[in-house]
């Protein structure tokens, strides 16, 4: 009788341990996802700011007194910052899509960002009323536990935009 109880206790103990480990691993994965999403958002925001700030067309101010962006410069500067941040973290396999609205009145790009993100009333269709840079990122996340369970998706998708106000 005593040995049966001991065996039951051992089995329950083992089960409880497995459950605790699974819960702890799941929490670690949730945090990794949360941290990765926050970090990706800050990279996208900083890249959009870099593109907007360094892509200003000063010649346009002199000639027409209106602020514009040099599309190629703004895009290159934003992409450079994203590449540097990804390299600093050793992240590969990410996707970046940088678009520029160079005109003084901005404009709109339908179907961008490629996945709907929270953008007020214009989900999945980016628009701005000033020159702006939009940065969309898809960053892979390395799961701790969920990789073993084959749970998808494993990427975080973020979008940020910055504009030049007159």
């Amino acid at each position, binding site marked *: 009788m005593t040995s049966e109880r001991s065996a039951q206790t051992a089995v329950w103990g083992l089960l409880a341990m497995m459950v*605790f480990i699974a819960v*702890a691993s799941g929490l670690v994965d949730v*945090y990794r996802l949360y941290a990765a999403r*926050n970090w990706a958002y*800050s990279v996208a925001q*900083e890249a959009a700011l*870099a593109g907007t700030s360094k892509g200003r067309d000063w010649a346009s101010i002199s000639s027409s007194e209106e602020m514009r962006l040099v599309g190629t410069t703004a895009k290159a500067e934003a992409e450079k910052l994203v590449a540097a941040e990804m390299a600093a973290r050793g992240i590969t396999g990410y996707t970046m899509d940088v678009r520029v609205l160079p005109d003084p009145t901005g404009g709109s790009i339908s179907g961008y960002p490629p996945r709907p993100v929270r953008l007020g009333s214009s989900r999945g269709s980016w628009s701005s009323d000033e020159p702006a840079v939009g940065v969309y990122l898809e960053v892979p996340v390395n799961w701790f536990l969920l990789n073993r369970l084959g749970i998808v998706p494993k990427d975080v998708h973020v979008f940020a935009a910055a504009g030049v106000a007159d």
Partner: protein
Amino acid sequence: MLLGLLIFGGIELSQGIAVRQALDSGVGASARALSLDPSQWSFAASLVQQTVDQNVMGASSPVTLRIYDSGGTLRSSAWLSGSNFGTSFTLEASAPFDADIPFLANAPITIRVRHWGIVERYP
């Protein structure tokens, strides 16, 4: 014993996460503030410290703020204050964190967060 490890480890981990989150938030806001007015170093340092002090788990740590140029060289607040429009910089904040978990040896770590910024103060 395992339950104790999980509970206290979880609480300490949460405190570490809260400090890091507060540090991230504070440094992001400070980098933007310094972009717009690079002479506001003491305001930026105070902003980060207050954000960390008011984190949701209540764990407070002294924050150290450092500034780097685009080449990764450590600079001073005076350098930033005198920087021209368009100068890129990286603001780094670090805070010590000591997880106190029963049955485990203490392993003090330093939580570091970096944010990029660019001076946008017109001359």
